[in-house]
């Protein structure tokens, strides 16, 4: 046989609750108990409020650059809902919804964007801090999951990244290590169509980003990333695959950022308003609210109540973040190493790097006082 087929595959897209309100009961029934669906909807409203206020804090000069999460709440929330406490969640910067669900105090995220490392000191749950260097965090997830496998403690890791991040070599290495060494990681790509101003076709011109995973012989799937049910479904499959078989899965969650890239960006420079309008209709909150209302689980009254609750909650969070004592210059030094070198102790004490300050005994002496070599 001169030409034979050595590999054959297809990639599926999972959608359960679509933007037109269609709900696939075969896949979706019983997937998320009603109470949980309500709780998650309420959570998204809180996250929206947080996002809005964070944006305003930046605009009014009370915070630095901030990346709006609006529109992309579902992938990280659906994942966090499925993950267990012992698992690691290794995120980028558009996963507030999942992180808050997991128990990360909301003020930590504000502190981070207020330019304060203490926002990254997280004791509450197994999450890594916001990853600014695009592509850097996935390898950490692979390592964290590897440790769980080594220890046989049943923990896995789930990592999030954007479409742009899949262009980085580190993505490739993280996925390749996981696949070849049988490491239980779930890779969730939030394909929001853009990497700052760069359309995702420049990041990945293949028909799907999901097929990135084929390179590693990994299970891969595309999911409607604005569909909470579908997201939960693929996460359940992926985490089972990780926990039972030590196998990674690659999930492409298609979604959209409804805001600018960050507060330093102006998306109107590069993005069609039509495109934005189309995606506004696919907003995950709309379909989820309709679903809940149809099931009589939600109402306008409840909506108002929750919006008020969210406003209060977020105000309190902002107050917490703003009331924290300013960091001190010592903080620059104190966690540089576990155990400071004598040189760093000197720099910390004197806040000096300059030569003469190095040896105080010499400051007194001056050449003019007649130094002889």
């Amino acid at each position, binding site marked *: 046989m001169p030409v034979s087929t050595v590999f054959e595959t297809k990639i599926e897209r999972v959608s359960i609750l679509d933007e037109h309100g269609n709900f696939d009961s075969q896949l979706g029934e019983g997937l998320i108990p009603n109470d949980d669906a309500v709780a998650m909807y309420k959570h998204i409203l809180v996250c929206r409020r947080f996002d809005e206020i964070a944006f305003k804090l930046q605009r009014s000069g009370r915070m630095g650059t901030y990346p709006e999460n609006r529109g992309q709440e579902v992938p990280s929330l659906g994942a966090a809902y499925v993950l267990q406490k012992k698992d690691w969640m290794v995120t980028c910067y558009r996963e507030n919804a999942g992180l808050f669900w997991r128990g990360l105090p909301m003020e930590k995220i504000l502190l981070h964007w207020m330019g304060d490392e203490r926002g990254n000191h997280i004791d509450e749950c197994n999450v890594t801090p916001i990853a600014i260097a695009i592509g850097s965090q996935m390898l950490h997830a692979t390592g964290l999951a590897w440790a769980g496998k080594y220890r046989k403690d049943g923990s896995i890791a789930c990592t999030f990244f954007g479409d742009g991040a899949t262009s980085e070599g580190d993505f490739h290495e993280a996925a390749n290590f996981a696949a070849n060494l049988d490491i239980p990681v779930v890779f969730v790509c939030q394909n929001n169509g853009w990497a700052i101003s760069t359309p995702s076709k420049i990041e990945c011109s293949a028909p799907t980003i999901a097929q990135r995973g084929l390179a590693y012989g990994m299970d891969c799937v595309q999911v409607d990333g604005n569909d909470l049910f579908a997201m939960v479904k693929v996460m359940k499959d992926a985490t089972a695959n990780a926990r039972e078989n030590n196998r990674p899965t690659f999930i492409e969650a298609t979604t959209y950022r409804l805001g600018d890239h960050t507060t330093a960006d102006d998306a109107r420079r590069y993005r069609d308003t039509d495109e934005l309008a189309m995606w506004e209709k696919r907003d995950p909150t709309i379909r989820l609210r309709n679903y809940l209302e149809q099931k009589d689980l939600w109402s306008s009254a409840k909506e108002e109540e929750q919006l008020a609750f969210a406003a209060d909650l977020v105000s309190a969070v902002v107050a917490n973040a703003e009331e924290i004592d300013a960091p001190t210059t010592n903080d620059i030094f104190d966690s540089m190493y576990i155990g400071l070198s004598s040189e760093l102790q000197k720099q910390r004490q004197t806040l*000096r790097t300059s030569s003469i300050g190095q040896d105080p005994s010499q400051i007194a002496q001056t050449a003019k006082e007649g130094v002889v070599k």
Partner: protein
Amino acid sequence: MANLTLVQSITLALIQEMEKDERIILLGEDIGLNGGVFRATEGLFQRFGGERVVDAPLAESGIMGTAIGLAMAGLRPIPEIQFEGFMGPAFDQLTNQAARFNSRTRGGLTCPLTLRVPVGGGIHAPELHSDSPEAIYTHTPGLKIVMPSSPYDAKGLLISAIRDPNPVIFFEPKRIYRAFREEVPEDEYTIPIGEARTVCEGEELTMVSWGASVVQCANAIQESGKNIELIDLRTINPIDMDTIASSVQKTGRCVIVHEAPKTCGLGAEIATGIMEHCFLNLEAPVQRVCGFDTIMPYYKLELDYLPDVERIGKAINETLAY
């Protein structure tokens, strides 16, 4: 003549060189329609088209490595890395490939490219947006490194960098991208790579700095009221030791100011160079006012980290009193 900011002056230099030389092609993240996150390439996509102003995938090693290929093929690529903190993924291609091609092929293949990178702190940016890695690349033979501190120098140095047949890193001190304006000639001019600029002359002490810190130094000198000679390095590799040494031979004292951490920073090289060239002239140890040997902190504390007028002033006084 136009009254331009530093970043405008860079845009002007790019436009003028691109109009003259079809071999120039720009590649980087968000440099196209968006004009770059600092708008340094504003309007270039519209003017020169998508073939010459290329939005690259989000992959710094890819940007650097393909630029090497473009350069070896005889083009004059100008890759951009969005922030110096993201040079990490490009490190291998930059130091082990771009810097070495001419040497490892004994001149057979060359890498005439100019890597543009915004550098330094002080703009209230997130993590990894405020570093000063110039010493690392100065310790890498095969690269030239340039960092202007004024709009005028920016244009002249960028044109020199683009025309240089070697790989050049053109560091852009982002803190002063728009801090002040200066008259910048419309006509082309070059500033030779390797020549420092004496910003002001003085007899009592020599101060050496580069990039955004030059502004801090000038302020500190003014406040001190002393008679100080300020040297703006402009080129970081090769270092213009002649200019520095002549000055220190005259003044006998020197303070070096930079943003990068102290240990193994460029300050050490310059101080040692001064010891080598001016040992018998030195009246006081050379002082380094620079970043601490710590990670550049997030922005709440960044001004504690960066050398400022007060710290520079102290060093002036102590060095003069020595």
